[in-house]
């Protein structure tokens, strides 16, 4: 197929969505979403389960057709020019999608053929991407001998094989142990530096989004709630979080509201988290009130806001790592290991 030159986007927007919408029956999964992403950006999509992240991603990857609206990727329309869009993007799915009866090299070879990587470059390119994710010495092992983390790394390598302009990572580190997660972060950082690649990732992990992304969009109910640099997001909500360990969190909660010491309060088993403007000034008053009320306090911490706080601030929900999903991810992996 002859590659036609991409139309020029405005400035250097590699992705531009225009009122992108997806409905399933009466349920609106993605609600008229418009945003632009610049070349070389690492862009994070955060949101609770069912917020529309994966649906949004699926439409950009041309797996799903939008109900209305459209998007341009690398200058190509995702509806009318999807074969060109597909050549411009690499995708790492949430669920594993490698063939475990084949070796790593065979999986990559097949991908290179499907994506029309020139034959003369295939060998070197495969070597290069394997090296990037540190799997070169395991290139000829069958994938059923690979661990979950290694498969993930191979999938990232595969996503990069055909020189995509944009790499989509849907929950790239879900179900992985902390060390494998650390590895994957490292590759993502390397990619940004070396290849000036645009990376779009969805994640459940706040610290992941915070440490990797140039910009973050928090999505809830199919809409962008807020979108900015992580540092600005954290500044934006203002104030500190006071975490108080005590035996009667429920009573302390009521007390803090009655005394108008804090308005954003989250309680758990043995803890109360209160959002306040200036922790250093408020904390003594909190302790005094608690003492007067006879509430015994075990521990106290003041912390600057992190992404978790940003998330709670904007969505009113905690973004706990969904254990069911994690388990099912692991199950799928076990299933495929058994199926060889």
């Amino acid at each position: 197929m002859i590659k036609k030159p991409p139309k020029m986007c405005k400035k250097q927007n590699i992705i531009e969505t225009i009122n992108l919408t997806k409905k399933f029956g009466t349920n609106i999964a993605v609600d008229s979403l418009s945003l632009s992403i610049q070349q070389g950006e690492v862009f994070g999509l955060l949101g609770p389960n069912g917020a529309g992240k994966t649906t949004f991603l699926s439409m950009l990857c041309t797996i799903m057709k939008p109900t209305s609206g459209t998007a341009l990727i690398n200058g190509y329309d995702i509806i009318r020019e999807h074969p060109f869009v597909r050549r411009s993007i690499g995708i790492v799915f949430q669920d594993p999608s490698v063939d475990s009866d084949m070796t790593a090299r065979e999986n990559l070879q097949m991908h290179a053929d499907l994506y029309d990587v020139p034959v003369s470059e295939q060998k070197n390119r495969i070597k290069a991407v394997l090296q990037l994710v540190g799997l070169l010495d395991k290139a000829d092992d069958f994938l059923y001998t690979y661990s979950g983390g290694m498969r993930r790394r191979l999938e990232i390598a595969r996503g990069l094989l055909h020189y995509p302009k944009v790499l989509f990572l849907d929950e790239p580190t879900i179900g992985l142990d902390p060390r494998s997660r650390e590895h994957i972060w490292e590759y993502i950082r390397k990619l940004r530096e070396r290849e000036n690649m645009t990376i779009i990732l969805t994640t459940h992990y706040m610290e992941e989004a915070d440490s990797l992304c140039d910009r973050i969009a928090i999505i809830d109910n199919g809409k962008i709630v807020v979108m900015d640099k992580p540092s600005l997001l954290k500044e934006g909500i203002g104030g500190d979080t006071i975490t108080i360990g005590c035996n009667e969190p429920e009573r302390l909660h009521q007390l803090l509201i009655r005394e108008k010491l804090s308005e954003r309060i989250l309680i758990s088993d043995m803890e109360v988290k209160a959002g306040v403007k200036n922790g250093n000034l408020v904390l003594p008053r909190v302790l005094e009130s608690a003492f007067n009320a006879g509430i015994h306090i075990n521990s106290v911490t003041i912390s600057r806001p992190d992404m978790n706080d940003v998330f709670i601030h904007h969505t009113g929900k905690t973004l706990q790592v969904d254990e069911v999903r994690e388990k099912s991810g692991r199950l799928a992996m076990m299933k495929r290991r058994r199926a060889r």
Partner: protein
Amino acid sequence: MSELRGIYTLWLREVKKFLREKPRLINAFCQPLLWLFIFGTGMRFSSAIPGINYQEFIFPGLVIQAMLFTSMFLGVSVIWDREFGFLKEILVSPISRTCIFLGKMLGVSTDVMIQGIIIFPFAFLIGIRTDLYIFLKALPIMLLVTFGLVCIGLTFASLMKSFEGFGLIQTFINLPMFFLSGALFPLANVPAWLQWASYLNPLTYGVDALRTVMMGDTWVQLFPMSLDILVLLGFDILMFIIGKTAFSRTD
């Protein structure tokens, strides 16, 4: 060009996987032996068909049977690809659905042909007259049978969501097609309903054509060779269209 390379790489995957699966190859080799030597010998001596060596008679039928069962089993492998996520990787590639279907079909067809050809050496063991010329004439007929069957398998795989339905295919496709093909008994003396049911089965024409080639004058043809070929061709084209349509709808 890129589409051709895509078809090639999908073909290669199927063939590699087939040849690597040693237990299946052993099974492919041994099952026809049981039919030929135990079932064949038993039938030959207990219910002889006048003027015909029963083992020679069922040999072409067994080739077709092996190809039928393999087509269904491997065709349904698309379900595994879906179950373990690999199908997604192929579906999002720039290759068109038609070419994906073609690559898969050609790959599975190659496996099925290998399965059919494996059985041929046994012809020497039971003393059937056969030579390279006969073998070469048999190949195109086997190929025509294979394409249609593989498309049936792929059609079901596209429609089925899980592997649980495979038992249904076994009962409602494999066995009826096998029993109604004239592979195990001649259709000349059976009741009219059984005869007509068999004539509706495209495999009957495949078995007939294969026997014409392999048994020579000892076999009284059911239909002229040209009709056999025509029916098989029609069967292939129809099943290809149905299979391709069903596959294009999967997501």
